[in-house]
């Protein structure tokens, strides 16, 4: 089936979304609902000596105030990267210790939101403050070399291939440069929000998430109850981007308050609080040394990184997993270090390692092209590879060169003049054209899929995957419609909520490559089960002919080479994904971005009127939402390159510009034409559907393409993001 392209089809939830029909957790406004508001710490590190909640308790309508004095029996969730479920290991409001500014210190619950907010404002704490460090540059910072840390190996060992240092020392052309990436926050439009209610000892949690199963099992651990007594409902999340990939710190607080009050509790974490109470993209710095011969063959790449983590967790990095594999470079050495800072634990913000790594490497590759006087596209094509430089294995598919060739043609790259500052737009602006490539591991998770056909023709399908707006419902519909010949109106999808199939973490661009092959397999299982009946009848007619009210089939699917034991992780809410290295091959998605920037001559504002992006994500299942994903990734790249920075005042810790007016995301007026195309060639080696991931790779390489275009326009190499007007004045 993977040899047939899928036709364009409407997004199945589009009309509900534009009409406001789609309901999110915070829309829940049932009678009797109690409202909870968090009070947060104003120091960057230390201890709560005394907390005074008397004034909060006296506010009319306040029903409950929880501080660490009440909650010290609550267990920690465990850290996602340490065998647990939480975005960080610590659970706020369970001890007087303050690890970062903005950490919750109390929860106030009231009959209405206004009383709860007033109560939270009246919480008073006396602190014993301790010295804190919040940036990579802090003097005497605690720097942990990942290779020497307790983090599991070989996953977090330094990546090496060949003799990079010797090859670099001997290289005819050497490029050395330092890059900086600021902390950034995901800011999905749906804020972290939970409605928790207990009925007959069973807890139901309404919360937009990428990982319902982790919420369920994590809450069970924290509350000391069986997971079977918890249901988590997340039929649709309003964006995740990695922020909602695990159990958040506020969820158990809402559950505990609901249990104590014996009524449902809604807790919405405010936008300013989200900057401090969930994960973010850590600050990082990158030193690149790139060596090449005079013919333009890259022979050595050394990539050394320092990345921010918290004092209480090691959030590991894998920047070099990507940088080692962009090209066929024989000599590679990575070294990744973590810098402990007094912040909440950072995490996986879209293309968490790949975007900063590609920024550093792809800017250097552009510099190399200029040192050689070689066209940047031609240089990249000449350094492409068919074998993975780290393992020596072949790629299951690699259409990077195709992405570059198609993108160059579509963009009109042959009209580019090489000389910086040599192209002008009609309005007199400096025009710059830049290119960069990106890649992202094609991971796959274990999954169970269940399909039920009723005699009336209705189809119910469940698989472990979450809809966060990326379009997975539309993709699944496409497969069910094609495979079973059912009308879309007869299909019910049960995804994102526990109590059906295990709702494994949807992240790392493995959603489609996990859910779609499973959907195909379970469809095939259903068709096989019906094979004995006359084929000229419809599926439902065959069922009726057999006198069956319904037929239900289930398949269990693992990633290639995954051990059987992974199913235990799947059913207990732990990460059960693998990739990019599978037995016998390595899998990545690829992309090439071509960017036009214009630099206004007077005030030096940078605009991005035009982008062409060509991606290889294997077979495209849902052309409509895939194009939207790719455009969305480009917009993320524009934001990351030119606008977004979470500002840090070292004196206070925390983040300063914690709202959507001051955290500068791109707006419509900042976005010009984004022209996207897909290679749409199946990767049958990875799975029968031929699909690889798309969401994250879409963003990888956009930032360096912009920086390279700025160089082409101005002759300036800018190596710290975001690039803003002051950098070009």
């Amino acid at each position, binding site marked *: 089936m993977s040899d047939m392209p899928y036709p364009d089809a409407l997004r199945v939830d589009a009309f509900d979304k534009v009409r406001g029909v789609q309901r999110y957790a915070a829309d829940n406004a049932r009678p009797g609902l109690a409202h909870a508001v968090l009070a947060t710490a*104003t*120091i960057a590190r230390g201890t709560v000596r005394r907390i005074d909640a008397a004034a909060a308790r006296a506010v009319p309508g306040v029903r409950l105030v929880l501080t660490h004095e009440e909650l010290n029996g609550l267990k920690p969730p465990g850290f996602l990267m340490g065998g647990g479920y939480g975005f960080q290991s610590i659970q706020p409001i369970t001890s007087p210790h303050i690890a970062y*500014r903005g950490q919750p210190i109390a929860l106030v619950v009231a009959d209405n*939101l*206004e009383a709860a*907010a*007033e109560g939270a*404002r009246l919480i008073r704490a006396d602190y014993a403050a301790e010295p804190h460090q919040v940036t990579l540059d802090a003097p005497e910072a605690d720097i942990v070399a990942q290779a020497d840390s307790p983090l599991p190996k070989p996953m977090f060992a330094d990546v090496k291939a060949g003799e990079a240092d010797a090859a670099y020392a001997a290289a005819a052309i050497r490029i050395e440069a330092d890059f900086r990436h600021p902390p950034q926050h995901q800011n999905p439009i749906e804020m972290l929000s939970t409605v928790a209610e207990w009925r007959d000892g069973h807890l139901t949690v309404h919360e937009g998430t990428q990982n319902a199963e982790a919420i369920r099992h994590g809450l069970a651990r924290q509350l000391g109850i069986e997971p079977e007594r918890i249901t988590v409902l997340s039929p649709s999340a309003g964006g995740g981007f990695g922020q909602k990939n695990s159990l958040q710190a506020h969820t158990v607080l809402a559950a505990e308050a609901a249990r104590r009050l014996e009524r449902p509790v809604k807790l919405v974490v405010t936008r300013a609080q989200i900057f401090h109470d969930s994960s973010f993209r850590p600050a990082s710095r990158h030193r690149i040394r790139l060596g090449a011969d005079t013919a333009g063959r890259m022979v050595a790449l050394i990539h050394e990184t320092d990345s921010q983590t918290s004092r209480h967790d090691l959030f590991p990095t894998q920047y070099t997993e990507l940088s080692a594999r962009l090209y066929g470079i024989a000599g590679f050495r990575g070294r990744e270090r973590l810098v402990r800072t007094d912040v909440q634990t950072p995490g996986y913000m879209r293309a968490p390692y790949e975007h900063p790594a590609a920024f550093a490497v792809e800017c250097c590759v552009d510099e190399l092209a200029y040192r050689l006087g070689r066209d940047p596209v031609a240089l990249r094509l000449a350094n492409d590879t068919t074998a993975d430089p780290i393992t020596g294995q072949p790629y299951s598919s690699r259409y990077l060169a195709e992405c570059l060739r198609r993108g160059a043609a579509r963009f009109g790259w042959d009209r580019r003049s090489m000389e910086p500052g040599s192209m002008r737009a009609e309005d007199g602006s400096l025009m710059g054209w830049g290119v960069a490539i990106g890649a992202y591991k094609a991971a796959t998770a274990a999954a169970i899929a269940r399909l039920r056909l009723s005699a009336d023709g209705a189809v119910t399908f469940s698989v472990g995957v979450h809809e966060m707006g990326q379009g997975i419902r539309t993709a699944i519909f496409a497969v069910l419609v094609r495979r079973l010949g059912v009308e879309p109106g007869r299909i019910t999808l049960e995804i994102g909520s526990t109590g059906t199939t295990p709702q494994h973490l949807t992240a790392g661009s493995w959603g489609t490559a996990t859910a779609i092959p499973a959907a195909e397999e379970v469809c095939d299982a259903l068709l096989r089960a019906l094979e004995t009946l006359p084929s000229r009848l419809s599926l439902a007619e065959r069922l009726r002919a057999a006198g069956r009210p319904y037929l239900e089939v289930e398949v269990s699917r693992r990633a290639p080479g995954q051990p059987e034991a992974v199913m235990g992780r799947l059913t207990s809410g732990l990460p059960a994904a693998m990739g990019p290295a599978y037995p016998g091959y390595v899998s990545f998605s690829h992309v090439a971005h071509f960017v036009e920037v214009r630099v206004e001559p*007077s*005030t*030096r*504002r940078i*605009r991005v009127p035009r982008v062409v992006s060509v991606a290889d994500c294997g077979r495209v299942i849902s052309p409509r939402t895939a194009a939207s994903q790719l455009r969305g990734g480009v917009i993320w790249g524009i934001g990351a390159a030119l*606008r977004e920075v979470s*500002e*840090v*005042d070292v*004196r*206070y810790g925390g983040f*300063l*510009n*914690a709202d959507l*007016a*001051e955290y*500068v*995301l*791109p*707006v*419509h*007026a*900042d976005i010009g034409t984004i022209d996207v195309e897909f290679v749409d060639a199946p990767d049958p080696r990875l799975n029968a559907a031929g699909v690889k991931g798309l969401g994250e790779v879409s963003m990888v390489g956009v930032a360096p393409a912009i920086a390279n275009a700025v160089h082409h326009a101005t002759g300036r190499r800018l190596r710290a993001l975001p690039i*803003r*007007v*002051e950098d070009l*004045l």
Partner: protein
Amino acid sequence: MRPFTYARAGDEAAAIRAVSSGGRGTRFLAGGTTLYDLMKLGAEAPERLVDISALPGLASFDTAGPRELVFGAGARMSDVAADSRLVAEYPALSESLWKAASQQLRNMASLGGNLLQRTRCAYFRGGEPFACNKRTPGSGCAAREGIDRGHAVLGGSEACIATYPGDWAVALVAFDAVVDVAGPNGARTIPLQALHREPGTTPEVETSLARDEMILRIRVPATPLGRASTYHKIRDRESYAFALASAAVALWMEGDVVREARIALGGLATRPWRAQEAEAGLVGRPLTLEAARAAGEAALRNARPGHHNAFRIELGTRTVAEALLIAQRRA
């Protein structure tokens, strides 16, 4: 949220009476786009709100008069921005409204309330743990040694360097606008230039209005400088952002020679900033690239950089120069 009472006034006199007799915690409420925001942040904590957003007549405006343009204080920013006569005859005024906030906010915000918009200084808005003399007089200023990229380079003091964030007031200052206000002791007219105060040692006092004085209308003298005008706003994104630097300029050209010029700066100062010295330097001369640049330099001559905002002196200089050239093309 702190409890407060809300009442809708029937007419102007009743509104003023209610605010005057209500005492210190009583405030006028118009569009609410600033006040509600600051109440949620705890930066404002009124006890009584007197809603003037539905007062009859306050929302009207007339841009057709031969001697002056009259804008009711209750007119919505979006309605005035779209006025075709303003767009054609006084583009700087229209642009200053179009380039402010977002369409949703402009649909709610009133012209009078917009003049009184308070600073976006993160230390002011953030509250604890930040020191802020504007929020808590005498507590200090966290911005002076902090992230001051957006803070004022003109008109600051030891006590405060918070930028006046508005756009509309900057354009009005360039056009010698006045505001008619009414209070319990009667009505008076204040030049817009005198409405906002520099922080000095009392940054918590931002305007020359008494607490119980209400802006009724804004009047702009009709002038031949209207048509060759622009509001040029440079910001971190192309919409929904405050100015890193902005310039309202208006020209009256006789051939190639400047007969009269107006220049006001936004985003750079603690109040709407008229640059009269820069204006004077242009008069009687051809407006060349060099003259425009010199005017920009004159406008920023007394600017004082902090730690992260020095670039905005150069940016402001270029913004003024560019704005002059845009206005010249409209002459």
